[in-house]
């Protein structure tokens, strides 16, 4: 028994086919997809070995966007890292803010007032909707429907970005949450316009689904492609819609009940097959659940302060210790792990990026598939390079 085989036994479910046998006589072809490739969502490289059209090996190459986020954060005060978290997953800056604020709040033992919790939930769910809509748009674009679904997704995204902009001053890099609350209060007018946008969202999801869900080409290209088995997904620490599409019921909003998620009624959509189509479907259903959360949160939002008056925002020195704050970001479990040594800067600052960890399973999903499907499977993981390489 070779080492590879013992490993396979130990890691139950991690039974990757270590040697794909080439069919016939032909030569193997090695190609580098990326770092400049229209489908790689940024600068990412896959070294693919092909036998004809079939993928025999796939080696992801990371690091083309390594921007020293963690190192810079170790040399800066806690608050100074907040704008950098925007640039991790640049589709979902508000969720990143929340995860980081949560970690620091745990580190210093900081409570968050009611109203701020509601604002956080509202913003995080709006972020989730625009992320899922655009990620589906990109996925369909990679199937060759150039533009159209993405146009629909971005039309809706712009409305949500308008809300972000009028509240935080920036379309994408919101830098909004603070330790112990939020930066500026929402006005009644903002809430009214948010309600208006949310009221229009179900119609958008219906339209999106009418165009896509039963589309024959989409079904033919996506069903049965890139199957991820639940046990393998769990072993590889996959999280987010990718995990739930494989049928594992794990949503940190339900598991941790961070913030005030225990007050809202929502369901966790699960897939059965773990293929690309299920991932698409889970994302669509998650959008609907997010709309439900928004519909509950927007009318309920209480009056009150948005910052804990005792909260220290800058210049504080947490006691030596460590904290891990995690949230269900649109792409999976986003966690920040902080170690404090009593100085104003974190001693260690570590990001647990869902994109990177979900991507480690890419080879297992792609082996034996056609090379054209690699692009699709890769798109269905839904990554953002800023978060993968940090």
């Amino acid at each position, binding site marked *: 028994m070779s080492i590879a085989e013992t490993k396979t036994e130990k890691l139950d479910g991690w039974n990757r086919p270590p040697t794909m046998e080439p069919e016939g006589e032909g030569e193997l072809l090695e190609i580098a997809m990326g*770092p*400049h*490739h*229209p489908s790689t969502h*940024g*600068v990412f490289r896959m070294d693919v070995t092909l036998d004809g059209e079939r993928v025999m090996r796939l080696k992801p190459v990371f*690091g*083309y*966007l*390594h*921007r*020293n*986020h963690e*190192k*810079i954060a170790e040399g800066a005060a806690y608050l100074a890292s907040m*704008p*950098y978290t925007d*640039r991790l997953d*640049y*589709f979902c800056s508000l969720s990143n803010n929340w995860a980081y604020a949560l970690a620091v709040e745990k580190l210093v033992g900081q409570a968050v007032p009611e109203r701020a919790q509601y604002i956080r939930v509202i913003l995080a769910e709006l972020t989730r909707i625009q992320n899922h809509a655009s990620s589906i748009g990109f996925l369909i674009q990679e199937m060759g429907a150039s533009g159209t679904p*993405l*146009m629909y997704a*971005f*039309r809706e*995204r*712009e409305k949500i970005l308008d809300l972000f902009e009028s509240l935080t001053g920036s*379309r*994408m*890099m919101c830098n909004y949450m603070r330790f112990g609350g939020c930066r500026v209060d929402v006005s009644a007018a903002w809430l009214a316009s948010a309600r208006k946008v949310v009221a229009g969202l179900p119609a958008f999801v219906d339209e999106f689904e009418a165009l896509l869900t039963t589309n024959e080409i989409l079904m033919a290209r996506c069903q049965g492609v890139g199957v991820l088995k639940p046990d393998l997904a769990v072993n590889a620490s996959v999280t987010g819609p990718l995990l739930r599409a494989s049928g594992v019921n794990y949503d940190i909003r339900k598991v941790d009940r961070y913030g005030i998620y225990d007050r809202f009624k929502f369901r966790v959509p699960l897939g059965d097959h773990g293929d690309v189509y299920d991932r698409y479907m889970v994302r669509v259903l998650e959008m609907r659940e997010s709309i439900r959360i928004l519909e509950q949160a927007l009318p309920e939002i209480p009056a009150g302060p948005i910052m804990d008056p005792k909260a220290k925002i800058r210049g504080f020195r947490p006691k030596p210790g460590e904290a891990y704050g995690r949230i269900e970001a649109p792409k999976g479990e986003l966690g920040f792990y902080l170690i404090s040594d009593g100085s104003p800067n974190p001693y260690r600052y570590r990001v647990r990026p869902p994109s990177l960890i979900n991507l480690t399973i890419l080879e297992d999903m792609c082996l034996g598939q056609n090379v054209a499907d690699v692009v699709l499977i890769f798109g269905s993981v839904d990554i953002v*390079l*800023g978060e993968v390489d940090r």
Partner: protein
Amino acid sequence: MAIEENLKIELGKQGVFVTTLEELYNWGRRSSIWPMQFGLACCAIEMIATTMARYDLARFGAEVFRPSPRQADLMIVSGTVTKKMAPQVVRLYNQMAEPRYVIAMGACAISGGPFKQGYNVLKGIDRYIPVDVHIPGCPPRPEALIQAFMTLQKKIDEQPLTGENRPRFLNQNAQGEFPVPEPADHDLEPPSNPGVWSAPVVIR
């Protein structure tokens, strides 16, 4: 040799269209700038948003994003250029056919931006390739990118086809290939291309 503007309008009323070869040529070029489909980081999302329905870059003849550098006229460096990526960017620029233009979009592409202090971030793409338009911002709004397009169009409009100031692609002696930096022990080698970039002089 420019034609008098009033005369042109007068002739236009009579149904006579007068122009110079230079104007016609530049008009054609500036009305169909095809950018390369090439995103680096956060700014690329704003670049995509610019091509979408609300901002509609098609109004400027530039909605056709080409995946191949061979078919592109314009490179939008949209995002952080790391030292691992910089050789690729220069290589892609070398592969583009003349006439070619570069827009440095965002603080990162201009100078390294918020990540300037990082050990792996290139402090501005203009160290290796000539940049035509810089747009500041982190990220620049789609309107800013449109402004950059209009600036570039104006620049193309004003390019004379002959004489000293003719553009690079009409000048046989101009530099066509730009040296691709190689990763070395501490930094890229060479750290900059002296032909296109020199360290700014600090006046105190």
